[in-house]
């Protein structure tokens, strides 16, 4: 009986082929017809890609001409830093999203059958590993190009980056399948290496062979590194592939809803919703916490709760502290007033992860209406702790500005920089999602929901508008402070409501 049952069980590949046949049978368009319809998007991608490439090439030419001394030393570290950053991102995303995953439908309908799970999961594993490699190489392409290296060296760098990211993803898959924490340790190891590299750049103690020097031994070493990482990726991916049969359903259940949720959020360019999905994912793995009660009353209770959050989730604060090296590395690279842009951008990138409380009270009105305060009071209370943290970060970076300003002025510039970071973070966290209830906006690509495209720029827009004036001496700083304060005033305005279509009759 059991032998007959085993014979009757189809292979995963057969099931996939059957489903593919059904889907193809229902499709109404040929693939070339889809491309015909998507020609605007394809053309736009090619044109924007060419423009971006031109910009990067122009920047490289300018840097070739202008970058000397400390700037050249820092520039020599650019490919290595970009490589480590790309690998770090690949590892972090792999740990967050899988990398072995199934859709909720496949989980419900297929994983409960006797079909070999390895057969079912193998294609997505290999796609993810290969995709991580290509994406990492694409991400590192611009920094590697800006480093001013020759074609062979740049290509080897990118191959090494792709291999390392793919290897990291494959290793994360193996850890996920075997329910081990090795990928966490590797993530911290890569983070520490990147930090040390930036510290070395900030203190001027590290440099690689300058661009244009065709040192054969350096190239051979680089080629060996690329071959090693690619080889490692292949070995780890085969290892993970072999282990797939061991994966437990509970392991896959941890991530099976994350992908569809993130896809939905991405389809509407709703970065806030993506943040919510990741926040929920972060906390769904912990069933309970040690409750902390007590504290002040009134609006200060919200501030006190945010302080308790710092103790409960210190990781983003530690990251902010670690990234204090960024302004000093920029200063060592003779970035001048660009240090302020780098500092405020770092604040914007880390800031939203400090604002869990603020995000929850602004994503819906559900909690806001339960509190006996005006909207501005609630938002200001929840912005206080992260805002002070970001201001402290900017102030701790003040010594990096001593190359361009006297101490009192450097402190003033740091305050302005911190305000840019706080305002951009507040805008990023509190911005409204696309409004699908309003009329569509006409664009060359068709009807687009109101606020869909602007949603992609949330936070970055304020960083640019408030941050760029910092590059101008004198009145630029006043303008930047004005824009930041105005943004904070606007973001916390009392009458911002979810349903804003019609005024209430009195």
């Amino acid at each position, binding site marked *: 009986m059991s032998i007959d049952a085993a014979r009757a069980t189809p292979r995963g590949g057969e099931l996939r082929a059957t489903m593919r046949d059904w889907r193809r049978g229902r499709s109404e368009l040929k693939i070339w017809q889809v491309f015909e319809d998507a020609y605007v998007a394809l053309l736009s991608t090619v044109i924007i890609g060419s423009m971006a490439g031109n910009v990067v090439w122009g920047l490289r030419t300018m840097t070739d001409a202008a970058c000397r001394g400390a700037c050249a030393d820092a520039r020599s570290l650019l490919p290595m830093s970009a490589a480590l950053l790309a690998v770090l991102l690949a590892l972090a995303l792999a740990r967050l999203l899988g990398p072995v995953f199934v859709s909720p439908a496949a989980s419900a309908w297929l994983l409960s059958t006797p079909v070999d799970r390895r057969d079912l999961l193998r294609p997505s594993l290999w796609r993810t590993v290969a995709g991580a490699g290509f994406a990492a190489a694409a991400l590192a392409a611009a920094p590697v190009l800006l480093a001013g290296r020759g074609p062979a060296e740049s290509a080897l760098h990118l191959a090494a980056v792709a291999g390392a990211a793919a290897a990291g993803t494959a290793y994360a898959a193996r850890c996920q399948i075997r329910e081990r924490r090795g990928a966490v340790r590797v993530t911290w190891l890569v983070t520490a290496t990147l930090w040390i590299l930036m510290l070395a750049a900030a203190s001027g103690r590290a440099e690689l062979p300058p661009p244009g020097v065709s040192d054969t031994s350096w190239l051979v070493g680089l080629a060996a590194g690329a071959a090693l990482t690619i080889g490692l990726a292949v070995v780890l991916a085969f290892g993970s592939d072999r282990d797939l049969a061991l994966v437990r359903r509970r392991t896959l259940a941890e991530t099976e809803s994350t992908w569809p949720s993130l896809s939905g959020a991405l389809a509407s360019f709703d970065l806030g919703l993506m943040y919510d999905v990741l*926040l929920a994912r972060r*906390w769904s793995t912990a069933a309970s*916490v*040690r*409750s902390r009660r007590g504290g002040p*009353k009134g609006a200060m209770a919200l501030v006190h709760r945010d302080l308790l959050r710092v103790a409960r989730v210190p990781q983003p604060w530690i990251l902010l502290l670690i990234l204090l090296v960024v302004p000093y590395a920029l200063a060592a690279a003779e970035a001048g007033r660009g240090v302020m842009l780098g500092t405020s951008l770092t604040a914007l990138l880390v800031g939203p992860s400090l604002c869990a409380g603020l995000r929850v009270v602004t994503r*819906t009105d559900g*909690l806001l209406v339960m509190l006996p*305060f005006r909207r501005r009071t609630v938002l200001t209370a929840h912005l206080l702790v992260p805002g002070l943290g970001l201001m402290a970060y900017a102030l701790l970076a003040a010594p990096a500005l001593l190359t361009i300003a006297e101490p009192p002025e450097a402190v003033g510039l740091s305050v302005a920089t911190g305000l840019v970071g706080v305002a951009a973070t507040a805008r990023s966290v509190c911005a409204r999602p696309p409004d699908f209830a309003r009329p569509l906006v006409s664009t060359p690509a068709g009807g687009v929901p109101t606020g869909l495209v602007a949603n992609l720029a949330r936070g970055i827009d304020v960083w640019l508008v408030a941050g760029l004036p910092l590059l101008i001496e004198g009145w630029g700083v006043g303008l930047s402070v004005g824009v930041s304060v105005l943004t904070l005033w606007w973001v916390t305005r009392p009458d911002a409501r979810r349903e804003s279509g019609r005024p209430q*009759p009195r």
Partner: protein
Amino acid sequence: MTALLSVRALRRAFGDHVVLDSVELTVEEGEAVAVVGPNGSGKSTLLRCVVGAMARDGGAVLLDGEPLDERSPRVRRDVAVVMDDIDFFPDLSLVEHLDLLARAHGADDVEEVVDDVLEELRLVEVSGHLPSALSSGQRRRLALASALVRPRRLLVLDEPEQRLDAEGVAWLKDRLLREKQAGSGVLLVSHRADLVEATCDRVLRLGEHSDVD
């Protein structure tokens, strides 16, 4: 004497479809009023319009004779609302939610009030759980608890019996009666005839023949 809550000639339409038209309603202190009717008759829409979660096309909603503006801290202090769409902080435990809310409202004896409500709603065992670890019934209890740990004059409840077991519904009846005795007004939407009969003084029927019993 001015009613605690007055709804006058309230109207709400979705496109051409008029859901609520000329709805009149009052709730006095110490009185419970139920809104009943078939699915789609506009019960939850009425509550949303009353508490300001949804815009009205016409009419007025008054609290103590003044226009009810949910942005006003005074209104939020007086009106406790439990709708279906309550949100939670993903990183705060059940008891921390209640503690935070009670403190934000400046309640006296916060710890005692929170402990009593946890006991009453049988949530003590899961008080350290995060919202993601709660069952749907426990989430519903948490939503009800959120209205009980804070001072209030008017309770607005949308199908509070939802996802409660028989013991929970019995507790709810008793609790609503105690709310009335304490002088609070109650406005609730419910599909449970026994709950409405046991607790409510008047009933507003929505649907084809809207009237007040």
